[in-house]
């Protein structure tokens, strides 16, 4: 599952976390990043990301 993540200082959502058990991958909003490309495809397939805390 994916969950949005807020910056601790600005409180802006600026990355997304891929969560698999206790393993987390923090993914930048960067079109060159292949994890982010995979996330965008996952969203395009109709999946919904969990909102940030």
């Amino acid at each position, binding site marked *: 599952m994916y969950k949005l993540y807020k910056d*601790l200082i600005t409180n802006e959502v600026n990355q997304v976390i891929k969560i698999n058990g206790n393993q*987390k991958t923090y993914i930048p909003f960067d079109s*060159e*990043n292949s994890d982010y490309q995979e996330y965008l495809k996952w969203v395009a397939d109709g999946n919904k990301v969990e909102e940030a805390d």
Partner: protein
Amino acid sequence: MALSKILNASVTDSTLTTTKLATPNLGRRNIIINGDMQIAQRSTSETGLGASAGYFTLDRYVMYNGGDASAGRYTMSQSTVTDLEGFSNALKIDCTTADTSIAAGEGLLLQQAIEGFNVQQLKATSTTTKAFTLSFYAKSNASRAIVTEVRTSNGTNRQACKLHTIGTSWARHTFTVSAASSMQIDNDNSSEVQINFWLHAGSTYSSGTLSATFAASNNANRAAGAGSIFASTDNTLEITGVQLEVGSQATPFEHRSYGEELALCQRYFTVLADGNRSTSEAICQGTYYTANILFHTVVLPVQMRSKPSMITANGTNYYITFANGSGDHHDAIARSGNSSKSVVEITAETNVAGTGGHACFTRIGGTSADAKCMLDAEL
């Protein structure tokens, strides 16, 4: 040759042929990174693979499946080589669960993707490519047919493929792709060329005919004739000495130092700390931004290909931060969104309890080998 021989000898024009001049033993020929399988930052062995794609062991080598899932499973490892001069390691695929009922869309391929910045030397002009040669050493438990595929994407989608028969002793295999026209290879950090080793292929990928010269992308023509590594649990395949170079001949494998090869790999993947190496391994230094929030800055050893993802794990007391003479166990670290390709900010806030303004340093917390901090900018 002795110096006296060089000073006194002469070479007649007729003995200098284009072929001889076209194979200078110069450095920086090999476009492949980690061709001699020395670097394995993630892991040296992973078992039970086959359900999903991914980078599992040796740096820069990714495993892909076809569109249909195979029941076949395998172990991927960095093996020790004792019977091939000049090499100490190989990439080994060992079938652990057989799958003899091959659905059309099944596939298993080992790939190294190459970013555009690193393949510009393949271009003759902006729309043509030179001849280039892929070479590698391989051996198997029994005679095995595999297909190598050179694929271009992003710029122009093309493929060229060759069938190889791998024997039970180490042998070098080569594949020269002729110069081609109507080719575009973008000069950027995206995946422009992919080197594929097909180890298992259903009819979707194998029902056509291989083309050794660049041809339009066509799945059916990608792996015709390839055998299946999943045919038996006896099956193994080892590959090393992978080289891709300009020219129509395979020159001797270009050995680079371990440090150089590691630095090349770190553009794509960097391990800052791994609890499997030590449960108290250092990660970074920083400061208590507030009593309950940590910020650390890590200047990376190599600028990464893209802004990296950060892979970590969380759990009770997985990390510890030291400041002002005492340790503060906490449960998780995170990547700051302000991180760049060269500098990563690492934060923590879960169960953090310190004093704002204190300088600090953070380690894996001594409790779990699962704790980690790894950066991923792979293609």
